């Protein structure tokens, strides 16, 4: 029934399984049980992110390009995500269970394709597949695929998880995770580990399973470090936050700059500039006359390009510097609300599959924002993980909209 228009608008359905529907059944029509606050907070977060992306990119684009280029693209991505979200909500999420293996295989194929010459190289890593003007990042979509697959598998266990199940889950995750590691994208791989942990926890894994996994993990990390599987820069990035150095060419330097950016924002921030400056400045000549020493420059960290990747991975530094504690805390509050809705939906779900889907989404977001924001504030290692809804990037944004779609779906059909 979920596959038809009638499934959305219960009033139009006059019989289920040959039986006429009752008024009570009609009230169960999915659209009536939409979670509007979840949708609202999603849109607010997207808008918040889009404005910050604009504030970061507007002064850095070459003069001949549209100053709103990034804003426009981000809004288009959000619109595409919203379209997919709406389309998904027509389908009962329980149908996804059957689709799970195919989605999973498709994702793995995509991840393999990225590693072949089909993949686009950027910044030393193969992470993208190009479709004309757009590039897709299969590793982003893989996050949702893995959530669906694990949720489907674990929900079958109905809370009775055996060691063999844990092993199965680990293998299932390991395949895409290793492919992503090869791109290399250590950060996204860590997201998969976190997802699995969250799903196993709620899915019913025993304490001994976690102890065993922890042990294997420690051995694996030791081996990885010992055998030199990781590139030097990856090790540096991971360890840099423990002892940041002011050497400008080191990773630790980025970290220090990010921290300075956030902290110098203070309580209220230094303000945003969303109009292209009358004299379009290129980053080198943009400085006031003189060799700068004491020229007053507001928003130095953002304006002077101190922070790398500021519209994507380090976007929280722009929030911190420009909007201060007020803006940053508001953003954290919005995320807290979002994740609370996800956990609440996990609890409200009619079945285990729904619970695990919501859990997966909650742990996906929670981990990403903790690592992303934590890294800019110097309490987590530097990894290339985007901030959900806020960082610039189509694949990430669309993936998060799909995740919202899953949550809404579970919530809408909690009585069916």
């Amino acid at each position: 029934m979920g596959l038809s228009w009638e499934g959305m608008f219960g009033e139009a359905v006059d019989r289920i399984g040959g039986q006429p529907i009752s008024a009570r059944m009609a009230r169960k029509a999915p659209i009536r049980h939409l979670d509007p606050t979840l949708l609202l907070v999603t849109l607010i977060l997207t808008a918040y992110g889009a404005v910050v992306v604009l504030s970061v990119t507007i002064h850095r684009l070459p003069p001949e390009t549209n100053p709103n280029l990034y804003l426009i693209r981000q809004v288009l991505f959000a619109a595409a995500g919203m379209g997919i979200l709406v389309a998904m909500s027509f389908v009962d999420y329980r149908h996804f269970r059957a689709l799970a293996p195919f989605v999973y295989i498709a994702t793995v194929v995509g991840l393999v394709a990225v590693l072949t010459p089909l993949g686009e190289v950027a910044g030393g890593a193969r992470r993208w597949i190009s479709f004309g003007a757009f590039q897709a990042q299969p590793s982003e979509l893989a996050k949702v695929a893995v959530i669906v697959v694990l949720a489907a598998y674990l929900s079958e266990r109905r809370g009775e998880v055996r060691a063999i199940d844990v092993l199965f889950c680990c293998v299932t995750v390991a395949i895409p995770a290793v492919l992503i590691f090869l791109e290399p994208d250590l950060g996204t791989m860590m997201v998969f580990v976190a997802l699995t942990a969250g799903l196993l926890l709620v899915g019913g894994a025993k304490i001994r399973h976690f102890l065993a996994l922890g042990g294997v993990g420690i051995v694996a990390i030791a081996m990885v470090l010992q055998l030199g599987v990781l590139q030097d820069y990856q090790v540096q990035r991971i360890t840099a936050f423990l002892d940041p150095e002011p050497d400008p060419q080191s990773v630790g330097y980025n970290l220090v700059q990010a921290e300075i950016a956030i902290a110098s924002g203070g309580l209220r921030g230094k303000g945003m500039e969303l109009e292209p400056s009358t004299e379009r400045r290129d980053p080198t000549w943009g400085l006031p006359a003189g060799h700068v020493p004491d020229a007053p420059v507001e928003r130095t960290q953002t304006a002077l390009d101190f922070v790398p990747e500021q519209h994507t991975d380090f976007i929280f530094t722009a929030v911190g510097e420009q909007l201060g504690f007020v803006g940053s805390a508001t953003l954290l509050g919005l995320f807290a609300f979002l994740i609370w809705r996800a956990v609440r939906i996990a609890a409200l779900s009619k079945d285990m599959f729904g619970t695990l889907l919501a859990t997966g989404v909650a742990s996906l977001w929670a981990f990403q924002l903790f690592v992303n924001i934590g890294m800019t504030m110097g309490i987590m290692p530097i990894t290339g993980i985007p901030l959900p809804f806020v960082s610039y990037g189509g694949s990430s944004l669309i993936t998060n909209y799909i995740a919202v779609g899953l949550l809404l779906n579970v919530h809408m059909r909690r009585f069916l």
Partner: protein
Amino acid sequence: MMKKERGGATQGIDRTTLRLAIFALCIMVAFVALFSRLWYLQVLAAPDYRRLAKENRVRFVKSEPLRGRIVDRNGVVLVENRTATAVTIDRQIVDTPRETRIVLRRLARVLGEKRWLLRQRLKSELVSPYKPVPVAENVPVKARDHILENQEDFFGAVDIDKIPSRRYPKGHSAPHILGYVGEISEQMLKEPRFSDARPSYEPGDIVGRAGLEYEYDNFIRGVPALSKMIVNSTGEVLSEIEVREESAGNDLVLYLDYGIQELAEEALKAGVFANRGRYPTPAGGVVVMDPNTGGILGMASFPDYDPRILADGLTQKEYNKLGAKTKGNPDDDAFLFRPIQAQRAPASTFKIVTAGAAMAADVASPSTVLDCPGAKPYPPPGRTDVGSAEIFNNWTDFDFGLMGFPESLEVSCDTFYYELGWRLEDSSGASVFGEPNRGEEHFQRYARLTGMGHDTGIDLPNELSGRLPDWDWCREIWRATKDDKIPTCGTKDGPVWYPGETINMSIGQGALTTTPLQMAVATSAIANGGAVMQPRVAMQVGRPDEDDVEHPVRTFEPHEVARLPLDETELSVIRQGMVDVVAGSQGTARTAFSGFPVSTFPIAGKTGTSELGDVGPTANLQDAWFVSYAPADDPQYVVVVYLEKSGHGGESAAPIAREIYEGLFGIDSSLDVRLGQDASG
């Protein structure tokens, strides 16, 4: 909250609830961690970090690019670059007063320079604090070796650097035109040409400070290399990245011909010294111009200076010395570029303008015949409406009788031109004395058209525009002098235009002043058929170090500013008169050109002798002028000569022009034959 479901699932779901709670707790811990960290950074530690952000700076340091060369129209290099050896001190290393004192003392001993001088240069705020400061240049080899061998004596802060500097392969040539370079001044940084330029100018930049170096700085400066330095709070450079590569400046190709420039300079100098036996002749100027394009082929000014002494910088004292050898006497100002900055009465040379104005205003025609008595009263008898008559004298008592335009120029008849001046004034509607209606101003309008009273637009800085007396000028000068005993241009009651002003102007006297260049432009217009050209020194901007004149970066096309409202017949009577000035039996420049092959190389010219008054130090002295073009039948050159406080135009100035024409046409003769007496008005 959780909804209990039916049957055996209850226990499982309860367990799931517990697990969800643990899951939620983990997330809450993460949030608490983030919030606390955020609170610490942005609220508790914010002031410290704000300070860090302020101190934390990227410094940009520029290196001076190689400036473009300046070459003449034939590719002769007039200005190029050389590297000077300089002793530099790194202020980042010597940063305590004690170390500074020691370094300066030792350096002063090695270099034999004054210690305070070195200290002053070291303190220069025009050099970036991250660049070593040059404190001495062109040091002897011995001192250089000593510094290099005893680095530890100077704490490793003193070094020998090569710094780019300008070189003049042709030496003492065209100093005013070429200009010189120096560090940009605070004042220059505010000028739109520098403040609006991209890449922007910054303190310490070496820029053109005069002449073409100044005018075309943006083209020839090149793009400086830019290094981005990351410095910590103590100013220590942590790393350096080159953001932009240096690119050398473009070459500037001139209309100027080095050979003609030399010729003009030498002829002027020789002429000045030849005159000094009889007259003070402190200064003079020469313009050689192509009448068809407005291109300046040569421009000489006397006295001048050697550009090489400016290449390495000049102290204020040295500058003052060059500026005026005798204190307060502008005659000796070597920096005054006479061709564009001397504003003097053009005297009779202006008659070529008056003649044109009269014909343009239809108060005379090419066939006009007027008498030339020794004196004439204006306003003419019978005209009582414009005040009482005044007698205007010709330069001689002799009555020449009736004559047309050609003869009037040949003998330089003043009374002929007084009449034209009066007619121009009368036709402009200024006949009511005391209540002037200056709406028409036929004469002034024509004079303005041919380049008087405003700058010519030559591509050199600080051009002066002379003074064209008109009603606007009259009111202005009256306002400025109305509290004087006798206000200029009016009475105590208000400004008054006296027709005599226009009559004086008709022979290039009175309040009228022009620069030699303005006269060259006016002469060009007569020569080339009526086109008032914008004079230009630079022809094009070429690629650096390529003699590819075919593919310039930018070409400055000849620009016609205005066209004289004269037809060929009208122009031809003026031209005929100018030919007769040189070749005619009564010509005022006849003596100066005696023996010159005028049949092969016909010269058209006009002399001018500007009276400087009967009393005072300039009594019985004149400014001598000669404006000319040649060949008269196919004008290729306009030559204007002007000498200050000298003899008559034909006597003092015309011989210099002859010298130049001889050089231009390759005629060999000696100078002394033509230093005879000649009189002109």
